[in-house]
C-alpha cells in the first residue's frame, strides 16, 4: 500500500473523532467517512396500540466497507441500538435482514454491504394516552456500529426524530417494504411431525445439517448458510451441501475452539436474495471442550515414573486419599438413612427376621450381603472410571440417566413387590432344579440382595460421599477403586455388625405369623419405588414414555400371575400374556428410550423463580454483581427431590434469597449433559445433589448435600 493511501487513512482516523461524535442531538442523519446512517420511521396508520409502527436505522456503506449481522462471524460486532422512548412505548429487537458472507483472507464475517435498513417494531401499550396537546412522539436513539474494510472503526451516533401521533408517516414505505422482504421466513413446519424437525447432528468434528420445509422453488439450488449462534462452526471452513429430495443437507466443520454448545441452533439459509430461518434440533453430544483437570505435581511425578517403567517412590498415599477413605466409609453408613435406600432396608429386615436365631446363617448372610455390596460398588465405580477414561462425560449416578435402565429397575421392583405381596413364589415360576438351588443357597440370595441394594442406592450421593467421589475420579485407578470399596463397606457395615453380634439375635422377635403380614406390608414401599421410577422416566422420556412403561408393567404382572396357574389355563393364558408382552415391548420400547418433545423437556424449562442453568448465564449474572444460587439436581436423585420439597420450598429460605436479590438457577442432570458434568467436575464433584452459591469477588461456596434452612440463610447473608 502506498504511503499516500496510508496518509489518507491516517487523516480519516483523525477525522473520525470529529465526524462520528460531533453530531448534535436532534439529527436524523449521522455521516462518517465510511457510513451514512439515518433513523427512519414507518407508521402509515399513526401511533396507536395495535397499529404497525416501525423504526429503523438505515446504513449506507461506502464501497468495500461493511457492518455486521447478529452473529458477526470470525471477528466484528453486531450493530447495537439503544432507544429512549416515552412511557408506554416499547422497542422490540432488530429484525435482521438476510446477511451476506464476507471473506477476509482465511477468515469470514457475516454482515451487510451497500445499503441496509435494520427495522425495529414498536409496541404501543393500550394505556398509551398522549395528552391532547401532544402532536408528536419523541424518539431518541443511540446507535453503535463497527464498520470494517480490512481495518475496523467503531462508530456511534445519536439520533432524534418526532413521529406525528395522529397523522400518517409513510415516506419511507419503500425502504421498509424492502427490509420486510429481506427478512428470513420461517421454514414450513407441521404439527404432528408430518414434516420432520430440522436437525444438526454432531459427528466427527462437523455438523450434519438437515433443513426441512424449504419451498419447492429453491430445491436443487446452492444456498448460503448462516448460524445465528456465534462460536460454534468454523465460519471460513470448507463445507459441502447437497439436496436429498425436499431436504437441504450440509456438512459444516465445527470450530476446534468452540465456545457455545446450544441444544437448539437457529440458522438462516439464503439463495442470495430471499432467506429462510430454521431452528435446528441438535442431535448427539458436543465434543468436550474443557481442558483436563489440573494434575498435582506429585501425581504428575508418579505418572512420569510409571511411563518410564520405574517403580514409583514408596511414598504413602497423601492425606487427601485417607480423608477420602474416611469420608467414603462415613458416607456409606449414612447412605442407609437416605430415602432411596429404604425399600432395600425393608428386604433386609425380612431377611433378618427369617433367619431368627440361626447364628451361623445370619453370619453367612451378613458376609455375603457385604460381599455383594462391596463388589457391586467396585464394579460400578470401575465401569464409570473406564468410561471416563474413554472420554465419556459422566459422573456418579450415570446409570440412571439411561431411560432403559430406569425401566428395567421399575420392572425388577414390580417383580419383587409382587413376590412380597404373595402373588407368586419364585419356586412356582422357575424350574424345580433352579428353585431348590435357590433354597439351598441362601448365601447367594444374600449376595444378590447386596447387588440390588447398590443398584438402587447409587443415585443418592450421601453427605460426605460427594467430596470423596469427586476426588476418586482424579486418583489413579487402584486408589479410586479402594474408595468405592470402602464406600460399599460403609453401607454394609450396620448389617455386618448386627449379624456378627450374638446380642442382636436377642432383640429380634421370634419368627411367626407376623412375618407374613410384615412381608406383605413391605410390598408397598416396593410399589412406591416403582411409582417413583415411573415418574423419573416421565421426566426423561415424557408422558408417552411413562405411559408405555406402565402398560409394560401391567402386561408383565399378568404374565407372572398366569405362570402361577395350573393345567390348561396356565398354557393358554400365559401364552396370550407372552404374546401381549412381546407386542407391547416392541411398540413401547422406542417410546421409553426417546427423549420427550422439546415442549415437554424439563431441562430448558423455567420453573417459577428458577431459571435454567448454563455456565455462561452464571458468569453473566455474577459479572453483573448479582449473587447466584445453583441447584444441580436430577429427577432420579431422591435426596435432590427431598431438598427441593423441604428446604428449597421453605418460605424463610425463599424470602432470604429474594431479599439478597439472589438469582436462582437449576441444572437438571436427569438425562446426560456433558456441560453439567464438566461444571460438577470443576466443583470437585461427580454426582448430584450439589448446591453452589456464587458471589462476585469470592470463591464459590458448595453447600452440604442434605440442605439445611440455617445453612442456606447463613451463606446468603454472609458479607
Amino acid at each position: 500500500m502506498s504511503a499516500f493511501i496510508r496518509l489518507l487513512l491516517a487523516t480519516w482516523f483523525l477525522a473520525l473523532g470529529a465526524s462520528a461524535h460531533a453530531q448534535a442531538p436532534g439529527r436524523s442523519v449521522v455521516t462518517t467517512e465510511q457510513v451514512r446512517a439515518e433513523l427512519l420511521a414507518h407508521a402509515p396508520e399513526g401511533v396507536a396500540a395495535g397499529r404497525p409502527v416501525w423504526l429503523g436505522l438505515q446504513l449506507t456503506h461506502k464501497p468495500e466497507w461493511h457492518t455486521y449481522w447478529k452473529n458477526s462471524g470470525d471477528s466484528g460486532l453486531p450493530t447495537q441500538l439503544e432507544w429512549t422512548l416515552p412511557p408506554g412505548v416499547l422497542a422490540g429487537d432488530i429484525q435482521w435482514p438476510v446477511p451476506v458472507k464476507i471473506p477476509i483472507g482465511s477468515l469470514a464475517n457475516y454482515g451487510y454491504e451497500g445499503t441496509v435498513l435494520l427495522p425495529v417494531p414498536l409496541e404501543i401499550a393500550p394505556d398509551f394516552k398522549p395528552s391532547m396537546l401532544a402532536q408528536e412522539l419523541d424518539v431518541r436513539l443511540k446507535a453503535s456500529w463497527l464498520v470494517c474494510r480490512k481495518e475496523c472503526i467503531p462508530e456511534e451516533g445519536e439520533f432524534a426524530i418526532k413521529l406525528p401521533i395522529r397523522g400518517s408517516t409513510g415516506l419511507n414505505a419503500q425502504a421498509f417494504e424492502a427490509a420486510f422482504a429481506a427478512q428470513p421466513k420461517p421454514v414450513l413446519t407441521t404439527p404432528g411431525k408430518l414434516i420432520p424437525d430440522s436437525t444438526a447432528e454432531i459427528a466427527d468434528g462437523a455438523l450434519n445439517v438437515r433443513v426441512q420445509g424449504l419451498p419447492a422453488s429453491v430445491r436443487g439450488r446452492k444456498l448460503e448458510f448462516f448460524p445465528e449462534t456465534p462460536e460454534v462452526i468454523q465460519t471460513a471452513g470448507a463445507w459441502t451441501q447437497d439436496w436429498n429430495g425436499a431436504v437441504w443437507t450440509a456438512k459444516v466443520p465445527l470450530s476446534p475452539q468452540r465456545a457455545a454448545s446450544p441444544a437448539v441452533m437457529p440458522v438462516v439459509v439464503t439463495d442470495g436474495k430471499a432467506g429462510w430461518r430454521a431452528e435446528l434440533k441438535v442431535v448427539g453430544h458436543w465434543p468436550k471442550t474443557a481442558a483436563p483437570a489440573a494434575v498435582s505435581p506429585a501425581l504428575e511425578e508418579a505418572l512420569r515414573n510409571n511411563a518410564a517403567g520405574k517403580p514409583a517412590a514408596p511414598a504413602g498415599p497423601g492425606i487427601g486419599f485417607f480423608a477420602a477413605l474416611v469420608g467414603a466409609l462415613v458416607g456409606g453408613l449414612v447412605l442407609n438413612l437416605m430415602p432411596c435406600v429404604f425399600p432395600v432396608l425393608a428386604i433386609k429386615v425380612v431377611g433378618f427376621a427369617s433367619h431368627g436365631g440361626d447364628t451361623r446363617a445370619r453370619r453367612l448372610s451378613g458376609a455375603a450381603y457385604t460381599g455383594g455390596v462391596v463388589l457391586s460398588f467396585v464394579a460400578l465405580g470401575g465401569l464409570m472410571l473406564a468410561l471416563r477414561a474413554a472420554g465419556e462425560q459422566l459422573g456418579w449416578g450415570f446409570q440412571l440417566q439411561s431411560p432403559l435402565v430406569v425401566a428395567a429397575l421399575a420392572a425388577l421392583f414390580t417383580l419383587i413387590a409382587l413376590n412380597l405381596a404373595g402373588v407368586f413364589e419364585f419356586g412356582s415360576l422357575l424350574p424345580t432344579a433352579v428353585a431348590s438351588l435357590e433354597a439351598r443357597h441362601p448365601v447367594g440370595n444374600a449376595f444378590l440382595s447386596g447387588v440390588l441394594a447398590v443398584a438402587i442406592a447409587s443415585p443418592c450421593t450421601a453427605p460426605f460421599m460427594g467430596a470423596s467421589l469427586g476426588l476418586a475420579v482424579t486418583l489413579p485407578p487402584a486408589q479410586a477403586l479402594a474408595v468405592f470399596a470402602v464406600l460399599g463397606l460403609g453401607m454394609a457395615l450396620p448389617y455386618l455388625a448386627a449379624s456378627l453380634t450374638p446380642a442382636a439375635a436377642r432383640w429380634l422377635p421370634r419368627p411367626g405369623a407376623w412375618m407374613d403380614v410384615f412381608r406383605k406390608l413391605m410390598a408397598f414401599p416396593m410399589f412406591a419405588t416403582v411409582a417413583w421410577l415411573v415418574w423419573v422416566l416421565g421426566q426423561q422420556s415424557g408422558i408417552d414414555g411413562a405411559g408405555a412403561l406402565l402398560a409394560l408393567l401391567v402386561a408383565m404382572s399378568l404374565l407372572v400371575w398366569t405362570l402361577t396357574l395350573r393345567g390348561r389355563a396356565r398354557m393358554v393364558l400365559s401364552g396370550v400374556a407372552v404374546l401381549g408382552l412381546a407386542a407391547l415391548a416392541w411398540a413401547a420400547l422406542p417410546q421409553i428410550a426417546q427423549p420427550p418433545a422439546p415442549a415437554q423437556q424439563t431441562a430448558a424449562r423455567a420453573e417459577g423463580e428458577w431459571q435454567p442453568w448454563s455456565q455462561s448465564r452464571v458468569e453473566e449474572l455474577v459479572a453483573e454483581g448479582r449473587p447466584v444460587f445453583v441447584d444441580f439436581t436430577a429427577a432420579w436423585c431422591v435426596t435432590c427431590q427431598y431438598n427441593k420439597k423441604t428446604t428449597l420450598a421453605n418460605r424463610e429460605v425463599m424470602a432470604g434469597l429474594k431479599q439478597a436479590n439472589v438469582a436462582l438457577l437449576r441444572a437438571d442432570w436427569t438425562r446426560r449433559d456433558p456441560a453439567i458434568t464438566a461444571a460438577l467436575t470443576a466443583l470437585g464433584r461427580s454426582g448430584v445433589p450439589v448446591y453452589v452459591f456464587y458471589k462476585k469477588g469470592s470463591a464459590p461456596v458448595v453447600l452440604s448435600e442434605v440442605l439445611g434452612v440455617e445453612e442456606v440463610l447463613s451463606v446468603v447473608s454472609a458479607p
Partner: protein
Amino acid sequence: MLPRRPFIAACSIAALASFLPAAHAVPAVGQAAPDFTLSDANGKAVKLSDFRGKHVVLEWTNPGCPYVRKHYDSGNMPATQRDAVGKGVVWLSINSTEKGSYEYMEPAKLVAWQKERDSAPTHVLLDEEGTTGRAFGARTTPHMYIVDPQGRLVYAGGIDSIPSSNPADIQRATNYVKQGLSEALAGKQITAATTRPYGCSVKYKSGA
C-alpha cells in the same frame, strides 16, 4: 491411462494439503499447543517449548486495531500483564500483521508503543508470515490463549466478557485471562475455557 489416476489424485491432495496446513493443526482446548519459534524485537529467537514448567499467555495484538487500543489506553491489558508476570507467568505478545498492511508497525515502534502504555510482556514477538497465528487459529486482535506447564492449551478466547469498543465496559466485564490464570495457578480447571474473542480481524498475509 488408468495407472496415472492415483498419481493425479495424490498430486491434487498434496496441493490441497499445502493450502490447508493450519486448518488441520488448530488445537482444541486440552490438546497440545503447537510449538513455534519467533524472533523478538531485537532479533532474538524465542521458542514456546522453552517455557515448559510455566504457564504461558499468548496475546495477539496490533496497535492499529481500536479494540487493542481500548485495552491498552485504558491500562487494562498492561495491568493484566503485570499481574500475570508477577505470578511467574510468561506473557508473549504476538503481532501477526503482514508487512504489507498499513497497520503494520516496525518492531522497535511496537515495543515503544507498548512501553508508553506501561506494558510489561515477557517478549514481543513478530509473526509477519502469520504461520503461528494460523496454527493457533487466532482470528482477532486481541485473541488470548493460555498454555499450561505441560504445554497444553487450556484457554482460548477473548480478553473479557463484554464485546464492545467502550472502555467504560471494562469495569463491568469479567477478565477471562485473569480469572483463567488464577484458577490454573490454583491447580483448578478453568471454568470458562473457551470464550468468544472479539475485535478486528488479524491482518494476515494472503496465501501464507
